């Protein structure tokens, strides 16, 4: 146990935890916007997979990571458009249509990978960006200020998302569309346009989350996300529909993942026990859900399509 508690090992573990949290954070912040406007996008995992594959493929072929990121964002945007069309325009049952989008993304990313790439070749990830002065601080420097731009971007989304949701007109429209769409409609704001916007924005972030995952790991494989997108959906509930709460949830998942893998590499705990430890975040999330529903209230119009005069 003592090897684990050296300062260096702890810093490495927590640093890795922050990086692991990144892909969850992108997807979950995006999902927060959708849910605040009243749409539950359950297809996040599939969109992340498609985003991850497109980023991986572009990075493999061109070596241009920014182009890869852009590609993942565009693919996410288009998946968001399809999702919004199904759930807003066609008023599809969101709990089930999301599973359809998940299966589509799962199959499609696997199909394209097998057909276009075949053997998993490694790609290089985004370089770490050292911020002058801040990165040189002892401990904190390595912990918080020695990550890639993608990691900073994810955590920057938290204050930005909070500000947009709570202090801007757009945020007000989004929140109202999720609480009382009829009122929004009365004021001449299109509920459909707001929801299209949030779902597409959220899906774009899910695509970027997938890109963050594949560049962090440096590979792509079938079902790369292994359910991360579903966890991202749960994190929104965990965080009570607030970006800051969502961030705590993402950090919890990231840290548990890195601690477990660190304990495994140092052979402190046997492999099988680490599997048991890996289910802690899921159990904590269930517990958080139980507590959260007693305290918090979900957006009143969540999963309810809006129809004028309905």
């Amino acid at each position, binding site marked *: 146990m003592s090897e684990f508690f050296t300062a260096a090992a702890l810093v490495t573990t927590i640093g890795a935890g922050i990086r692991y949290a990144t892909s969850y954070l992108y997807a979950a912040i995006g999902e927060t916007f959708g849910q605040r406007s009243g749409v*539950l996008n359950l297809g996040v995992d599939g969109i992340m997979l498609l985003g991850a594959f497109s980023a991986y493929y572009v990075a493999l072929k061109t070596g241009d990571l920014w182009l890869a990121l852009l590609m993942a964002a565009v693919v996410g945007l288009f998946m968001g458009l399809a999702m919004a069309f*199904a759930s807003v325009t066609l008023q599809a*049952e969101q709990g089930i249509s999301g*599973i359809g989008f998940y299966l589509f993304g799962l199959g499609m990313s696997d199909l394209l990978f097998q057909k276009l790439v075949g053997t998993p070749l490694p790609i290089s990830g985004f370089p770490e960006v050292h911020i002058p002065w801040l990165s040189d601080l002892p401990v904190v420097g390595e912990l918080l200020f020695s990550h890639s731009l993608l990691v900073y971007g994810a955590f920057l989304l938290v204050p930005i998302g909070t500000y947009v949701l709570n202090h801007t007109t757009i945020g007000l429209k989004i929140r109202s569309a999720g609480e009382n769409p009829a009122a929004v409609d009365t004021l001449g704001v299109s509920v459909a346009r707001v929801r299209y916007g949030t779902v597409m924005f959220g899906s774009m972030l899910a695509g970027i989350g997938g890109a963050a995952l594949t560049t962090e790991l440096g590979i792509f494989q079938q079902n790369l996300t292994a359910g991360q997108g579903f966890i991202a959906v*749960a994190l929104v509930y965990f965080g009570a529909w607030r970006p800051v709460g969502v961030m705590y949830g993402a950090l919890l998942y990231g840290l548990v993942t890195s601690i477990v893998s660190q304990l495994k590499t140092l052979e402190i705990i046997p492999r099988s026990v680490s599997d048991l430890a890996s289910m802690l975040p899921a159990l904590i999330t269930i517990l958080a859900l139980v507590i959260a529903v007693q305290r918090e209230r979900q957006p009143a119009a969540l999963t309810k399509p809006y129809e004028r005069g309905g």
Partner: protein
Amino acid sequence: MEGRKRSNLRLLSLAGGLFPVVAVVAALLVGAIMLLILGADPIEGFGAMIQGAFGGVRQLSDTAAKSVPLLLVGVGITIAFRANVINIGGEGQIIFGALFATGFALLFPSLPGWLLLPGVLIAGFVGGAFWGAIPGALKAYFNVNEILSTIMLNIVAVQVMNFLLQGPWMDPGEIERGSRIPQTTRLAQQADLPLLIKNSRLNIGLLIAVVAAVLVYIFLWRMTEGFRIRAVGFNPHASRYAGMHVQNRVVLALTLSGALCGLAGAILVFGSEAHRFVTDGSATGFTGSAGFNGIVAALFGGLHPLGTIPASFLFGALLVGANKLQRTVQVPGALIVALNGLIVVFVVSSAIWKRRLSQRIQLLASRADEPRNGP
């Protein structure tokens, strides 16, 4: 109140009608276009799939075997949907059924077959019921969204499975060889599910699944308790007013739903060719995504237990045919997973036209009933 009522009809409007067939045809058309883009001849591709799924006794029995878990999961999902509960915890419930069944066989390896075989099936049923009852209770008594709790319980189930298969239950041979594949040892022979056709993969699981589907039909449409479940799904407020305990029905629906998934898990283990519990560390590695594909079958079967029988056979055929697709036109079988996803999206999206149609019919009917006060 008004919104609540409408959302109930929303889920039920997925039941029945011609739209699922249209959705499958549309998805297959998209599949044909994708085959063209991938440089394969769609006619040759689909021909190979039909050949691979229906081409002979061997193919037909493979298809039937593949449809067994889909049927059980689909029928289970149907019970939940009829109570207006969305169960996407099929994967976890299959795994828990398999865990209980395997545990039973490991605990009593020397029981005679006539005791052990029913024993493992009942254990699977109980394991799935247990894993379905949890989200049921969480929803009924703590108001926790069942979509989220079932997703989380899927994750927990995978971890429990990996813990047992890489730890206490791991095949000692795997440890000796150092290959460390997460699997149990070959389970007691007398618990092997008897084959229906010699040298095939088709076992009595098929009969069990079909009987289960018929029993669930009788339960839901011919028995009081089943009627209550459907009533609660159709209108919880009216049901409560009529003196029904709505919460208990929600728990019962999810418990039964999970139980059937658990039964599928037991059949997956004891009807497999390896006769052991084996995974690759993911849920899909063991279930083959039956927990999700069962939803597709249930939707195509019109959320009716009997409709799910032919529906799961069709989707079993798609999955078996997918292997042939790879060999004949070099298109990975993952195409079928993507198409399954499209079918789900198309079915739930097309429900809007069905609702509009029934609204119009109701409107016309109410107009016809109105007394004519005209001049």
